[in-house]
């Protein structure tokens, strides 16, 4: 049977009452959990796996998948309206989305995020349906050195494009990488920078740090001045205007592609997809200084990329049995618990299951879009709550979010201390984005660096002998060197002008 016929049969199965009910439930739960800061899809899926054991495997995985991609839709809402990302992938959305909300344009930010998410998610799922086999062959050819180079490229983009001093951005990037090394060394099992504390053996939870840095840090900056009650009162129209749509069309197209390509690479994260998309948009912009101040492209691209990524992420799971992210690992665990083994034989052994789940993901995108745009107005009602009350509730959710990541009060300390440092860094214009990116992907960077050097027996030649690795690393080097070159050129020009004016004055 061809793909379209299989997809049609899958669609029919999705509309069976039980499957459809759990699809809606998954989407709604995902949306709600995404809104709650700190409770990521991985934790939510893990919590719900025991509940699914009494259901059919198809209904179970439909619901778990719905939570996974639904969370991304919901996470956007808190990122934009409260600057509190529910998911690491939504961190980058907060940069411009929150600025838009502050300017009374939270509605269009959420609207374009929903539209971009729908397009990205749909294309990602169609890619899964039509190209799963081909993608499995391609993904197999990508080695550790390419992963390493790809991540360095993403870090270079984000570091250089962060607002302010590149040196400060690089310092923050290195700091994030450093925190990622805390814990047991994955290869040799030796503790690193744990100071004998067992709590640190698993490393410092990056979600707790991110909640602190972005959620608490922002509250502290606001509270320092005085408690203001009218920070988010105006969000404007929910639907983006024609200019917004024109500005967002290309970022959505690019975001779809970036998310999809990264989604098929096991080990990449949706945070990389959204950060990379953001970097690309800043780089392509005629006026990059608009970014960080409420540029709609900074919302459209990353939001599309992370939803395209999320759906494409099922490709390595379904075709290779490799979970690309923590959430996908939880879905894999849910599948295994329900007697379904993901991998190359899944399409052959369980065609009904796999095509129903794929079809449910397509229908799920429609459900989320329909729920999302009208529901944005409901979420906007939250803005009516005075900030003097809201900030205390956000503080509570930062505590719950940090705690629920691993049910450990230690993460509450981590979140609070991170929040205080986030506040200090913000005051001194040290950008948070490079820190968060390297914090999230730092362990992956180290893992792939070490793996590459293990493959080459310690020879660094592996980084210039493999064409794709070389291209990506050259791209990273160019990304860092180009702004320095531009800065030097501008400085020389200014010096010439000032000496000319001094000579003229004399």
């Amino acid at each position: 049977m061809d793909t379209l016929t299989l997809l049609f049969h899958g669609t029919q199965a999705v509309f069976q009452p039980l499957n459809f009910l759990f699809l809606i439930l998954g989407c709604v739960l995902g949306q709600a959990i995404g809104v709650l800061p700190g409770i990521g899809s991985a934790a939510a899926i893990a919590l719900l796996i025991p509940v699914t054991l009494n259901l059919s495997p198809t209904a179970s995985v439909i619901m778990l998948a719905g939570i996974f991609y639904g969370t991304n839709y919901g996470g956007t809402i808190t990122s934009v309206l409260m600057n509190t990302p529910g998911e690491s992938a939504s961190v980058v959305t907060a940069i411009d989305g929150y600025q838009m909300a502050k300017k009374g344009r939270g509605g269009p930010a959420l609207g374009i995020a929903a539209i971009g998410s729908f397009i990205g998610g749909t294309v990602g799922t169609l890619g899964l349906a039509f190209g799963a086999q081909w993608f499995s062959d391609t993904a197999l050819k990508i080695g550790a050195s390419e992963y390493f180079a790809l991540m360095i490229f993403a870090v270079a983009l984000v570091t250089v494009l962060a607002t302010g001093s590149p040196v400060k951005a690089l310092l923050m990037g290195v700091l994030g990488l450093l925190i990622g090394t805390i814990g047991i060394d994955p290869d040799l099992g030796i503790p690193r920078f744990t100071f004998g504390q067992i709590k640190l053996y698993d490393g410092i939870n990056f979600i707790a740090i991110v909640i602190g840095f972005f959620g608490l840090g922002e509250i502290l900056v606001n509270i320092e001045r005085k408690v203001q009650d009218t920070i988010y009162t105006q969000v404007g129209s929910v639907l983006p205007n024609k200019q917004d749509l024109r500005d967002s069309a290309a970022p959505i197209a690019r975001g779809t592609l970036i998310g999809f390509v990264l989604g098929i690479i096991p080990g990449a994260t949706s945070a990389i997809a959204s950060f990379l998309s953001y970097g690309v948009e800043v780089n392509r912009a005629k006026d990059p200084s608009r970014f960080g101040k409420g540029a709609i492209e900074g919302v459209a691209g990353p939001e599309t990329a992370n939803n395209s990524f999320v759906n494409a992420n099922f490709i390595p799971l379904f075709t290779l049995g490799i979970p690309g992210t923590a959430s996908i690992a939880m879905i894999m665990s849910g599948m295994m618990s329900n007697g379904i083994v993901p991998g190359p034989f899944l399409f052959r052994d369980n065609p009904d299951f796999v095509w129903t789940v794929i079809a449910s993901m397509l229908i799920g995108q429609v459900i989320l879009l329909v729920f999302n745009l009208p529901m944005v107005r409901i979420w906007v009602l939250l803005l009516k709550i005075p900030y003097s009350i809201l900030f205390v509730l956000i503080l509570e959710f930062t505590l719950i979010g940090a705690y629920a990541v691993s049910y450990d009060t230690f993460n509450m300390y981590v979140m609070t201390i991170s929040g205080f440092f986030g506040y200090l860094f913000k005051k001194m214009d040290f950008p948070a984005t490079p820190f968060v990116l390297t914090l999230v992907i730092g362990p992956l960077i180290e893992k792939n660096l070490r793996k590459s050097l293990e493959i080459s027996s310690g020879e660094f030649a592996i980084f210039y002998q493999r064409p794709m690795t070389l291209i990506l690393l050259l791209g990273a080097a160019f990304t860092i060197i180009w702004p320095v070159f531009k800065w030097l050129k501008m400085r020389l020009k200014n010096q010439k002008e000032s000496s000319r004016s001094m000579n003229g004055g004399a």
Partner: protein
Amino acid sequence: MKRAENITASIFMVLGIFVIKGATSLIYMTDIGPGPGFFPMWLGVLLLFLGMLLIIQNVFSKKKAEIVSAEPTEPLWPGKAGAIRVAIVVLSLLAVAFFISYVGFRVAIFLLISSLLYTLGKQKILTTLSVAFVGSFGVYFVFTHFLYVELPKASLSLLSALGL
């Protein structure tokens, strides 16, 4: 601003030295490739280098005061009142993190919300208590019953006996 930056850069440099020292006690290279000390060692070197670079940049950069317009700018650090507000929030959260396993989520959060709403939020007592009740007991109910997120319960026998 530059003074604060130089202090921060110095802290980064000290951290870099500390990391290099820590990395030297780990295995740098194994027979099959880089060891646990390889990556941190280079990160330490980078921290040291970048910290130094930031200080050099600040020392050699021209005084911007001559170039920048004389518009009044917001001070970098808050006044006494602002610092107290920040300290209250941070210390309150640390206190919750410490006491929550003894008094449980509901009591800890009730006290957190009511104290912050009353002191910083300047809310009326009725609003304060209502929001604190919903935010603690209501949120606990929703999370434990609908989201199945187990939140801390009191370990103190008195509170535990009350079902908190």
